[in-house]
């Protein structure tokens, strides 16, 4: 992956969020406060603008800039979480023009750790961790099995989507949905759904 591809990834993610803003917002209205789509759309619109205005030359810088932009424009729970994830991922990468899939494994995992450190969610809490965790695992296994970026990203996208779908029967223990108690069961988590969009976007451009 190089900086151009990383930028393409962010652009594809922004496009996916824009297309699904209403869907994400509806999911959030069911068990949260109905702003997740709007939040991320505002954030990724700003990310695309920031990356265009002064295009960074390394993958690391692209991700750090995307993360900081999300942190400073989104707010809510998802702003700090996605922002820290991308920022931590970027910081975990070497400052090289090109990064290898195995380096991306480390970066994605650093992002996951940032999310878990900040938000304290464990797998099964019905949060974006339930899509992000399986996606990183699948990415890592594919790379270990010799897959290229496209192959690893496809595996991650599939795992993220399955993880997001698997949040439906869960009872939320973190975030706003946790206030609902049992009433949170039967709904798909909006953050896990947007995480699935992120990995789908990566697999589209890889």
């Amino acid at each position, binding site marked *: 992956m190089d900086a151009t591809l990383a930028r393409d990834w962010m652009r594809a993610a922004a496009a996916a969020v824009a297309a699904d803003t209403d869907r994400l917002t509806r999911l959030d209205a069911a*068990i949260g406060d109905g*702003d997740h789509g709007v939040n991320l759309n505002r954030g990724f619109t700003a990310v695309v603008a920031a990356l265009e205005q002064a295009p960074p030359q390394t993958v690391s810088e692209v991700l750090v800039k995307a993360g900081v932009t999300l942190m400073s424009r989104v707010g809510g729970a998802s702003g700090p979480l996605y922002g820290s994830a991308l920022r931590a991922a970027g910081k975990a990468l070497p400052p090289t023009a090109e990064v290898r899939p195995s380096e991306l494994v480390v970066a994605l995992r650093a992002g996951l750790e940032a999310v878990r450190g900040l938000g304290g969610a464990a797998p099964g809490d019905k949060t974006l961790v339930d899509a992000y965790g399986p996606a990183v695992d699948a990415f890592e296994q594919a790379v270990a099995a010799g897959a290229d970026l496209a192959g690893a990203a496809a595996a991650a996208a599939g795992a993220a989507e399955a993880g997001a779908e698997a949040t439906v029967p869960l009872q939320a223990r973190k975030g706003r949905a*946790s206030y*609902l108690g049992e009433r949170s069961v039967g709904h798909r988590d909006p953050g896990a759904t947007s995480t699935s969009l992120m990995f789908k976007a990566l697999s589209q451009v890889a």
Partner: protein
Amino acid sequence: MKKFINDPADVVAQALAGIAAAHPELRVDVEEQYIVRADAPRPGKVALVSGGGSGHEPLHSGFVGPGMLDAACPGEVFTSPVPYQILAATKAVDGGAGVVHIVKNYTGDVLNFQLAAELATDEGISVETVLVDDDVAVEDSTWTAGRRGTGATLLVEKIAGARAEEGGKLAEVAAIGREVNAASGSFAYALTAGTTPAAGRPGFELPADEIEAGVGIHGEPGRRREKLRPARDLVRSALDVILDAKSFDGPVIVLVNGLGGTPLIELYLVYGEVAEYLAERGVPIARRLVGNYVTSLDMAGMSLTLCRATDEMIRLWDAPARTPGLHRGA
């Protein structure tokens, strides 16, 4: 959706411009999105900063002024503010004696204020955080995000604000804020959901004879749906939950709070029922406030908050305040 707005994307920024125009006694940074007392920073005074999603007005912007907050950071509608915004407000009001962040307990608010506090600390500002989590409709368990911050936020801002105004030190101001929170319990009912400008439709749909009990202030559905009952019953059920959750072994401050779409005539009727039931239960009312203070856009609904008030709290509750949303004495 019918609202007096121009474009759903610009509501918060344009409302902020309106606040700036309406309140020359405040200073509004429209760029960074925060509101401060015009005389900020006040050297030597502990500063209070709060904020959260917009849509709860007059909270928090309406409580900026002498005797309450030094700054408020409004986020997008129902979305907590961002760290850089909170940092900018914190720097704008720091008078060298430290800054208290009053944060309602929602994941988004907690995380964004936490990041802002780290950034402020890096810049040499002492920050204490007072977390407000008074909503006893939510079970307080380590398996959830914990109780939400609702009506008691107003009490914390008023009482801690008065303590800061009279010269309280950072630790003292934070301590009384935490005491007020610990002594408070709230419970809310919604008759309808509010409509965010961005979503354009109500957060949930309720049948004509049903209500949400234990609802939050962000259009989150409540713990359960119930049939509408007379105000008297609803008040008694809510007070039972509150009185069970915490100890109210002495005088209380009562807040009967409208969620935005409920007229004052109903809130006063509700207060009459509250006063009657608390008398029956032997809980003396020291002070009370009735009105729309911690709202959820146009939601028809109301929340009840009780705070077991010490003499000190009552003294500070009575102290002067001069803000757009709450005015006391001089």
